[in-house]
């Protein structure tokens, strides 16, 4: 008796009791479905975060004040005050720095912004004209901060699209209107193009003002919270990092690179950390989903045990007529594998559909690696073997006379 015959016989048996077969499979469908959906959503958000970070440019370096320590996260912007506008200008102009294209000093702090009637708490970013180039900002309307604005500390602002809708409502062009930051009136001269808001922070929830205005007029500071540096191209990133490091060490009169009072990191560093975080979440959630898969497997075992008991006479007859143990084992294993495999395939389709719908709903790019699909199908087959083994053994070891006598 070959496998295909056993297979068709098993299909025949399983279709005799469709409700039971369906219910037994449901556990696996839910298990595999939730694992696939969660893994896929995890990959989607990972992809979204990666895309967002990479949209800033892969040749972007960020310098923040604060000593290098385990990981780059140490010292959130503003935690230390060792970087200055002059540092940034030196990076741009020094002949020792050959691989740097653009330098963008930034001063960032959250504060309250109001139009008189409405107000919102948002991030104020003091920047220079090069920010637009370095951070790939484009404008929906109006103009960006000019060099003159920085020189003369003019009170002008460019709003992110989130701030526009918070303060003025959707679809309103606020150029020419005025807003108040820390009770100082600013004229709105532009609106930044929306950049999407997934990941750690909403990139549209921001107000750009001239760097000097932010430092002197708004917050009374003489330092910058970060310097973004655009390297000439991706291949000189390491060299650029070294040049920036040595120049800043020299400017800060430090000899030992280990005692540096600043930290330089690239987008890839952030990407790595962000991937690690979303990866951990995905693993955690999939682990929880895997428990439901285990429960589904136990359900299959339960049904198979019931089936074996119900078919005791049939098993006895088959053995009396010459069926050997391995044939009986194969017969029941194939049944349980069909149950879990079908459940796995249906669950996979359901999981992919769920993930597709959810990622469309929350504006994530849909992602699903073929590996996880193969893994899900493999796992569901393995569950069939694992949880079908004991019932199949039980069937094969039935004594024919006991089984034939069984009522």
């Amino acid at each position, binding site marked *: *008796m070959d496998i295909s*015959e056993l297979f068709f016989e098993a299909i025949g048996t399983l279709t*005799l009791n469709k409700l039971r077969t369906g219910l037994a499979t449901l556990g696996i469908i839910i298990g595999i479905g939730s694992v696939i959906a969660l893994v896929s959503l995890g990959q989607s958000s990972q992809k979204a975060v990666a895309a967002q970070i990479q949209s800033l440019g892969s040749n972007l370096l960020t310098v923040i004040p604060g000593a290098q320590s385990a990981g780059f996260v140490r010292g959130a912007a503003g935690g230390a005050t060792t970087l200055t506008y002059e540092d940034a200008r030196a990076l741009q102009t020094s002949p020792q720095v050959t691989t740097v294209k653009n330098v963008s000093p930034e001063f960032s702090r959250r504060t309250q912004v109001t139009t008189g009637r409405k107000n919102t708490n948002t991030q104020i970013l003091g920047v220079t004209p090069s920010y637009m180039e370095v951070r790939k900002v484009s404008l929906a309307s109006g103009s960006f901060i000019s060099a003159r604005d920085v020189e003369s500390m003019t009170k002008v602002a460019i709003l992110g699209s989130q701030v526009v809708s918070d303060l003025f409502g959707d679809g309103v062009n606020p150029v020419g209107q005025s807003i108040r930051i820390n009770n100082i009136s600013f004229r709105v001269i532009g609106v930044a193009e929306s950049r999407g808001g997934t990941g750690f922070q909403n990139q549209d929830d921001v107000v750009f003002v001239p760097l000097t205005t932010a430092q002197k007029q708004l917050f009374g500071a003489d330092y910058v919270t970060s310097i973004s540096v655009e390297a000439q191209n991706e291949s000189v990133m390491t060299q650029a990092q070294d040049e920036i490091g040595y120049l800043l060490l020299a400017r800060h009169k430090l000899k030992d690179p280990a005692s540096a009072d600043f930290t330089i990191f690239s987008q890839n560093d952030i990407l790595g950390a962000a991937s690690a975080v979303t990866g951990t979440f995905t693993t955690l959630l999939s682990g929880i989903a895997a428990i439901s898969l285990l429960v589904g497997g136990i359900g299959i075992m339960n049904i198979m045990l019931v089936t074996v008991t119900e078919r005791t*006479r*049939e098993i006895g*007859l*088959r*053995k*009396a*007529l*010459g*069926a*050997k*143990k391995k*044939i009986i084992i194969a017969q029941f294993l194939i049944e349980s594998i069909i149950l879990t495999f079908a459940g796995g395939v249906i669950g996979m389709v359901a999981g992919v559909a769920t993930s597709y719908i959810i990622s469309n709903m929350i504006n994530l790019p849909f992602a699903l690696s073929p590996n996880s699909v193969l893994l899900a199908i493999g796992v569901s087959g393995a569950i069939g073997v694992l949880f079908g083994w004991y019932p199949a053994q039980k069937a094969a070891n039935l*004594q*024919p*006379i006991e089984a*034939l006598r069984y009522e």
Partner: protein
Amino acid sequence: MIQLSHISKIYKNDSVETIALDDISFKVKEGEFMAIMGASGSGKSTLMHIMGALDLPTKGTYILDGEDVGKLEDDELAEIRNRKIGFVFQAFNLLPRTSALKNVAMPMVYAGVSKEERKEKAKKFLEMVGLADKIDHTPNQLSGGQQQRVAIARALVMNPRLILADEPTGNIATTQAEEIMAIFQDLNDNGHTIVMITHEPNIAEHAKRIIHLRDGKIVNDGNHHKQRRVKR
């Protein structure tokens, strides 16, 4: 061809021993038609199980077609049952929702016979028991007598050395029982060895030799002298 020597079967249940068979010895020659009679509890079912290689004796040796069945493993016993013994049960034991043809073909499945040959042979044997027009019927579409004829076809399909019938007419209407016995007699006339268990004397009368069992012992073994039914 069949030789039982000093066969005993003792069941132990909570330290209480039940002797089902007590030192039984007899031979069955090729072509014999033997009936085993006895009241319930006499040990005739146990004897049938041992002769059918469904169970092993506690003591004694059982030689079937030159092979010592008492020394075999489960899978080897399965093979003996498959190739050398044809079973006919009181309750027919056909697979439900499965066509007569497939039921008859089942022993051949386990013998590794090809699909085409199985179909052809099963058809031939169903024709032989007079069910040529019922090959696609499932057991619940057949009468008791017809079901038993399917079971007989199944017992014959592997061309076994021994046909073992356990109360073959026990679940069948009297008129049909006669037809079943006629088939057994035809088989015996064609050289098949048949051992049949029954408690009905009029059924046992069809056999050439009758063994009476009581309390696990043979109390009478002999050719009975009533005239056999006249051959058609």
